[in-house]
């Protein structure tokens, strides 16, 4: 055997060890909940609006979209919804779309509730509770902000204040008009 043979064998052994061990220590982690969705494409779920018409995010490409998961029985949602209306009234003309996704309730109940609070942004009905699973909801309310390219920028678990909402959408709206 030539002198170089042991070195060749050692090199092959090192390659084998790498091939065997690397897949066992792949690891990695992901932040649980909606916060972990940042940077991903927004799942396109087709739901129905409160009038029973099909509704999809595809319609709002090139806009900044704030989606909020809520239900009538949820106290923090009830506190947050008037602030969402305020944000919608302030920024809709600048390209912001606010969508309230009622999770698991009837269209009549959601519509009556939205009217009682004076909400004018679109209300979608998610009877099969698909939105919460697709957007990794950990509770109510859940808010997801999507930029004009359809990418999720931020995800929040729990109620936001008006100032927090405004701070989150302001840079995206500024980019939309730059």
């Amino acid at each position, binding site marked *: 055997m030539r002198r170089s043979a042991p070195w060749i064998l050692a090199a092959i052994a090192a390659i084998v060890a790498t091939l065997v061990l690397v*897949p066992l220590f792949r690891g990695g982690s992901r932040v649980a909940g909606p916060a972990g969705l940042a940077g991903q494409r927004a799942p396109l779920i087709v739901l129905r609006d409160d009038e029973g018409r099909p509704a999809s995010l595809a319609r709002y490409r090139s806009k900044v979209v704030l989606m909020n998961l809520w239900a009538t029985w*949820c106290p923090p949602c009830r506190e947050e919804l008037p602030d969402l209306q305020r944000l919608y009234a302030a920024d809709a003309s600048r390209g912001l779309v606010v969508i309230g996704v009622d999770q*698991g309730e009837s269209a009549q*109940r959601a519509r009556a509730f939205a009217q009682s609070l004076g909400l004018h942004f679109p209300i979608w009905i998610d*009877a099969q509770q698909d939105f919460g699973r697709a957007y990794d909801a950990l509770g109510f309310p859940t808010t997801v902000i999507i930029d004009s390219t359809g990418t999720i920028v931020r995800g929040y678990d729990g109620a936001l204040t008006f100032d927090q909402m405004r701070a989150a959408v302001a840079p995206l709206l500024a980019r939309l008009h730059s």
Partner: protein
Amino acid sequence: MRDVATLVVAVAAAVLLQLLLPNRAIWHQGWYSVALVALVALLAVRARHAAVKAAGRARAAVVLLAFGGGAIAFSGVASGLLAPDRQQIVGAPGSDIFVPDLGGSLRFAALHGREPPALVLPGRAPLPIASQRYIGAFLVKQMMRTVVAVEARDAADAHLTITQPTGSAFSSPVLLMQQTQRISGLDLPFDAFSVPAAHRIVKVVLFSAQQVALMSGISGSPRPVVLFAVDDETDRPLPHAIFLANDRQQVAVGGLRLRATIVRYPAVELTAIPSLPGLTVGFGALALGLGLSLSQRGAKTPSRSKS
């Protein structure tokens, strides 16, 4: 040379068994790995002895056989000692579950969709897991389980939100039935959900057709049933709020109208296997060593017949 070949065959056979019967707990036990390491140590000693005596192609054959045996054993020991035990990944329909061992997420399809679960790795197209696949150091296969999709309505028949604060997906009306409850000596799949608008917590126990037959003595063809037990939001049982319901039957219980649909839905099972690249290199070296050894014998045979 013969004892080297015997030891190599023993090592290769043991690790091939790991690959062919991956679900056995034995592969993760310490004594199995110790036995494999002992076999390789013996192989190294015998191979060294044989290599000293041999020369030329015969020596190269011994070295290649020993190297191949070592690579195969290393793949087997690494899988048994370092890889996790068998795991079952159970996801709610429409959810993504991140699996660190696969370096990506398993995406579970809609409840009544026909697509199998798919592995989603960053920057790659989803990889469907229809029957079974070898991915990295794992055998990944789909397995069917029974889950229960529930629907809750109020007295006016209006749809109510269902949540699973302790389940794998908070916002899912599909119960994955991963816990068990012992009733009458039977371990029965169990799960629970909340109906926050009605201030109710509902416990659900699933009886398979066989268990129904066993408990009730029905001969014919019994059907699976679901037991609903409705508590208030502080977990206190309500009076007369336990009800057995057939599949898809709507029942009025505890102030709610509940319907359960019993469905077979896929989960994914992950089993560690010896590294396929490691085995390829190992068996490649064995084949090369065997080839050299045979060619050496072929070269020797005529001279022996002349003498």
